[in-house]
């Protein structure tokens, strides 16, 4: 891919919008199950396009945009590839905040909470 003009980023995107757009159909309704290979592939292709090393000889502004996009993609991938972090992120997107001190370290419980919420919403 030719490294073209890189643009500043916009504000409201979630990790899903960037790495798994097919699972983020606009509404705040995201799937927990992701295809890991698909996710990794998307991550790598995006990094190939925006990684700052490809912009070393471009302007400072372009390089800065590349840096911001690249670190956002890194962060998104780090969260989405890990089931526990992904679940926590989903809860957060759904407006459930995990209070400090009662950190959720039990993936099974987390799944249960997610399932329960989904059933509630469908009801």
């Amino acid at each position, binding site marked *: 891919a030719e490294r073209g003009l890189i643009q500043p980023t916009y504000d409201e995107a979630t990790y899903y919008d*960037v790495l798994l757009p097919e699972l983020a159909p606009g509404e705040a309704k995201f799937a927990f199950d992701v295809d890991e290979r698909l996710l990794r592939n998307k991550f790598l292709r995006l990094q190939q396009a925006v990684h700052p090393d490809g912009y070393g000889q471009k302007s400072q502004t372009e390089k800065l945009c590349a840096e911001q996009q690249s670190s956002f993609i890194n962060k998104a991938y780090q969260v989405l590839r890990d089931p526990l972090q992904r679940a926590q992120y989903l809860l957060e997107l759904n407006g459930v905040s995990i209070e400090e001190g009662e950190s959720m370290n039990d993936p099974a419980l987390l799944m249960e909470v997610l399932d329960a919420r989904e059933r509630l919403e469908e009801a």
Partner: protein
Amino acid sequence: MPTAMPAPTPTAERGDERGREPMTVSPEPSIRSRSPSLPPGSHYIGIDLGTTLLRLCAYHPDLQTVRFVPNERDKRKTPCFVAFPDDIELVESGRKACDPVVGEEAQRWLFKYPKATVFSWAQLVGLKFDDERVAFYQRYAPYRLVKDKYARVCVEIEHDGRQKHYRPEDLTAILLTYARQNAEQALRHPITGSVITVPAGYTLLQRDATKEAARQAGFQHARLISNAAAAAIAFGFDRPAHPTSVTEYVLSFNLGAAHIDCAVVGIDEEVFEVLASAGDVGFGAADVDVRLLMHFVQDLSKQSNRKLTSLDLLSLRFGAEKIKKALSTADSISHTIQLSSGAYAMTMTRELLETLCADFFDRCLVPIQQVLVEAKMDITKISKVVLSGGGSHFPKLRDRISSLFPGNHIYDFALIDKHKAVGYGAGIESALLSGMRSPNITNYLLIDSLSFSLGILDTTTNTIKTLLKRNTALPAQTTVTLRPIPPTTPPTSTPPAPIAVIKLYEGDTTDPKTCHLLATLSTPIPTQDKHITLSIDVDVDRTVLVTLVSDETEKNVRVTDYPMPVFDVSEDWERGVGVTVVGAGERKGQAGGEVEGMEIQD
């Protein structure tokens, strides 16, 4: 591939995380982007900077391969020696007495001017004088190590009857200057960028010192990659055809003279991702030489009339190195070393060497286990083990590593000379940064990761809260919210405005004593119930940028942009120590946990 892809700006994200309106702080590229952009057409060169040898590697787009660039003596490797001989021979040739000589030219002065010929200093780069590794180094070095005013280690060189102090990075700078001049002569164009290989376990301070050396040597930009990552890149270009849709995971192990490097690297077509890396700096194949040396000394002590001078120790040390190399292939070797008390003839077997070094091999395996755990990688998912570095070809070590991985996993390079694998990788990376493209590197990319965690001191518990974990992919960014609580006892008189002091650390434990203090930052504390937002950005060159936003009233003020301290700043770091500690904080977000505690200085 659309490059205009959606992603929020870090500043906006801060707003999202806290459920407030996105803030309007706009990035100022001149401040925020740290590593320089070199103008189009700038040339980079790869430098395999070992402890004992330096290799220069340039990518040739027409030949689609990495070429090793010869030095002035037409050799493709330069011994890492810098000497300052006060010799009449040099003065007669028109050289000034204080001019250093480099490489083979310097090596030949070793025994005539042992106090002015420096070698193996790479392991001293960025160390404090008090470091135990400095004391160990001193035991076998003929020149004196001293402390500079920042408590860092320096090499004391005697020339012209006077003592001069050189920081290890000054010596590296001399070596890199020589390398750059050789490359410019051979390639016939100016070179302004470099890709330099360093041990994976180098701290930010050691990396900074190396970058400083590169700057002194005339490189406007120096990208540092680990030896293990570089060797994995070479593997990627050497391996047999691989199904393009499948990620291949390799374990790259590099044993240099004074470091062990280890990394798990995921390879997808041309993208190399460093999933985890670990290393041991100051410990490496040269420790085998030291064991042999100690064995010889013990052996000699049994013979009468043997008194060892410091020159004898030097002879034994370099003799030991030769014997070690020979025993990589031979089962036994007879060797004679000339000492002041006469010739010392000995026979050494591989078996005895292996006995002397049993615990050495154990220690080599530690980082391998560590990276496998950190990469959360099942051993069966590792398809190949890539060995590089002079010491890694030792048969016993090969066997030990091999036994960790069921099946025959040790990779034998087919096209690339195994001794040149690290240089090859550096050369490929230099092609990318030079903006070169050729059919075999159309979309090449190395995604490197942090070597050590970064965190700030939680002053309520006096422990370090990690903000960016080690092995986080670069560039990386994270944001936390700090909430200071006013002092519990109201001040009696009108005090100066309170200042929050935030200490940034590098290290993998929660104990501040065992981590490195990188910077102490301060910011005025906003009125009660307001936040301080702290963001850490680490770019691809591992430059750390901390942004503190103190959102007093509705206006957002960026209090300070604090780049990693330049290597020379160190006295300032302790600013703000010894203050009252109160406070708690909260944080909601994806990465990391609660960061609480700020120091309040009043």
